[in-house]
């Protein structure tokens, strides 16, 4: 196993910081001593194989999984062990891998559940703005969640999180299980969110997708970070890619 390269701090003010986080499911340890940072306005891709701990990392940020050790800081404030709803209200949007839209609720009602008052320094999203960003959803606003296609459901999950006017959005495997043409659309949307000033932390297995959207990459394996750096740095070290990402 290659020696982990020292996680380098990105430029600019820090948005999110994980310090030596340990997380468990019951007695099984998933994250061990995981540290990573996300700078304001960055798109960071969390890469790693199946079971490396990507989803658990995002859940540990949201406090849906409570870290047993370590610290999570968001905009300089310690959010470890806060209830999830407080974490969300501080400006963290969470888009789970299984989407988890409310299938019995209409598109509009799904958005309503996500609505939170605007905070200083973040975009104040309205339904209109979201329907501009996701035109498919506009057509289907009165449809129930279960009537949507996989891609539409994925769009709805993102739109629902944006209704909370987050400063940082956590996307768990946004390219998984949707048609290639939608994957392209997804990449465009992520880049657009970035231009709106949002910070994005996304987990990915698909290196190509990550390359299309991310500024920086964190590679995790067995629940700890093995590499952190820019895309260019990752390209310069193909042995890292081979060790942690190739199947």
């Amino acid at each position: 196993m290659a020696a982990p390269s020292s996680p380098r701090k990105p430029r600019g003010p820090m948005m999110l910081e994980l310090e030596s986080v340990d997380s468990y499911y019951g007695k099984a340890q998933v994250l061990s001593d995981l540290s990573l940072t996300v700078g304001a306005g960055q798109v960071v891709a969390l890469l790693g194989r199946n079971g490396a701990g990507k989803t658990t990392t995002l859940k540990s940020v949201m406090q849906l999984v409570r870290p047993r050790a370590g610290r999570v800081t968001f905009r300089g404030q310690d959010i470890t062990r806060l209830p999830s709803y407080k974490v969300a209200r501080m400006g963290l949007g969470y888009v789970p891998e299984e989407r988890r839209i409310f299938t019995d609720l209409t598109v509009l009602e799904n958005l309503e559940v996500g609505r939170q008052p605007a905070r200083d320094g973040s975009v104040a999203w309205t339904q209109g703005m979201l329907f501009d960003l996701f035109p498919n959803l506009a057509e289907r606003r009165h449809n129930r969640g279960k009537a949507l296609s996989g891609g539409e459901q994925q769009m709805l999950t993102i739109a629902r999180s944006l209704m909370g006017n987050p400063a940082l959005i956590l996307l768990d495997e946004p390219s998984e299980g949707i048609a290639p043409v939608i994957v392209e659309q997804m990449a465009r949307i992520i880049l657009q969110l970035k231009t709106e000033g949002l910070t994005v932390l996304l987990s990915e297995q698909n290196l190509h997708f990550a390359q299309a959207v991310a500024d920086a990459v964190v590679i995790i394996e067995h629940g700890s970070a093995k590499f952190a750096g820019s895309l260019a740095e990752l390209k310069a070290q193909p042995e890292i890619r081979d060790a942690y990402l190739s199947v």
Partner: protein
Amino acid sequence: MGLFIAQLLTGLANAGALFMVASGLSLIFGVTRVVNFAHGSFYMLGAYVGYTLMQVLPGAVGFWGAILLAGLIVGLIGIIVEICVLRPVYSAPELFQLVATFGVILVIQDLTLMIWGPTDLLGPRAPGLKGVVRIMGEPVPQYDIALIVITPFVALALWYLIARTRVGTLVRAATQDREMVGALGVNQAWLFTGVFFLGCALAGLGGALQLPKGGADLLMDFSILASVFVVVVIGGMGSLPGAYLAAVIISVLNVFGVTYLPQSTLVLMFVVMVIVLMVRPFGLLGREEVAGEHGQVGEPERPIRPAGTGVRLLVAFLLALLASVPLLGSNFYNVLITDILIFCLFAASLHFLLGQGGLVSFGHAAFFGGGAYVAALLVTYAGTPMELALLLAPLGAGLAAIVIGWVCLRSTGVYFAMLTLAFGQLLWSLAFQWGDITGGDDGLVNIWPSDWASDNVVFFYLALVLCVGGILLLRHAAHAPFGYALRAARDSARQAEATGINTRHVQWVAFTFAGTMAGLAGGLFVFSKGSVFPNELEIARSFDALIVVFLGGVKTLSGGWVGGAFFESVKDVLTRFEYWRLALGLLIIFVVIVAPDGIVGSLRKLGERLGWLRGERELR
């Protein structure tokens, strides 16, 4: 024709209170996933509080104001219960929540008794609505008409709240995925509390509204509980229109039943429920519960292992101690310990079903009482000797379990629990209403053991052998391959199926086995007491067993009989006090929150901490 319409109207009027209580229960279940057993108690509180307010507030304004205030006050009491009792157990397994709300029932029962006394209260009549309206010549009380008009408005207001407001949207979202709602920034704790307030307020409103028709008494809580469960299950858990539809069906059916089939009013309701669930396992308008939606909660189960030498010696010592009880020469102790032994076997049989099978049955008394009635009927009508009756009691209960299990195991989780409850009530109402055969409320008496066993000491040894034998047999089954298959079905039905286990079949056999053992306990019970009454089949008896299993520790192997022995001994002491229900209720709530592992589980943990027992880790 006039009579028909008048009866239809009475049925519709009765549906009002039933709908309000049922919709409250349904709402609470939908969001919190807690089946609130104490919901009948909030209904009862609504009636008592409403009664007191009506004494104070004058005139028509006072009457209707009292009803609204009663709803509000009961809602606020609900908030206290939610914060103190339910919040600590939301993340605990289903059974813990049920037991906790059962503790609430006991507490409310005694508090009501303390405040309002034991006498039934006659509800005041509504000012201005004291007369009757003649419809096609038949008298219909004006108040009934008022109820028929009011109920749809309450239903409509409720529908508007749920379907059209932001709070309602959040409630519906939380019904589907409450964790996600939290992750979107909604404070679930207050959402839960709010829903609990609303649900309890509805129950209180229902209780106060029916005052002019039924008054207030201390049995209201249990008497409405069964109907409410039936309504919620027929309508579909979490569906408001379903609750309304089912409330109307059940109420109308009851009114017609009283007229045309007076012997079967109680039975009818449960028969309808069973039929509906066989056709639509999730109720008329219910949504299918997705398997594994809520996942396994709480600590993972520990693998069971055969008793070590120490435990065996301890058991042998205890048995020797038990066998020497008659040496005390006290008839009182002989009889008391016999009762305890019988109850231990009953508890152990439910514990097997619950702990090994993961099947939460609310109607296990059906088999205990069933066995008791089989024996009693055989003795009364066929002059069957005790030996044969004791053999046929478990067989009869086992046969009943085969049939009931076949129906109930078609559904899972809460629906399974409700179905077992319904069958328990079905048998109870048969025993209660079929007076010509079963003696009804007077029960069957003069059922005594054969001459050789009529001495207390001899019967004690007979009970000792049969009960300990039954408990050991249950324990043996847990260690047999059958027990492994049963636990596999409990922990992951899908994977068990994939390894070739017919999970439904295995559970069916377990259900029958547990029923048979409960029947044996029931048979012994009859000969010990010399009589049997319908209350051996009651919900309360099933709950006794559930509480015992819980107190002993569900996730242990010996929790059933240990809990049984503890409960029966404590009950013997407790029931000497006037407000023993209050004490027992508080004890139950305390155990649920503080020591959820039960007696055996807590002792085991203590032993491991002190180093007396080997922990799980060291065994690997």
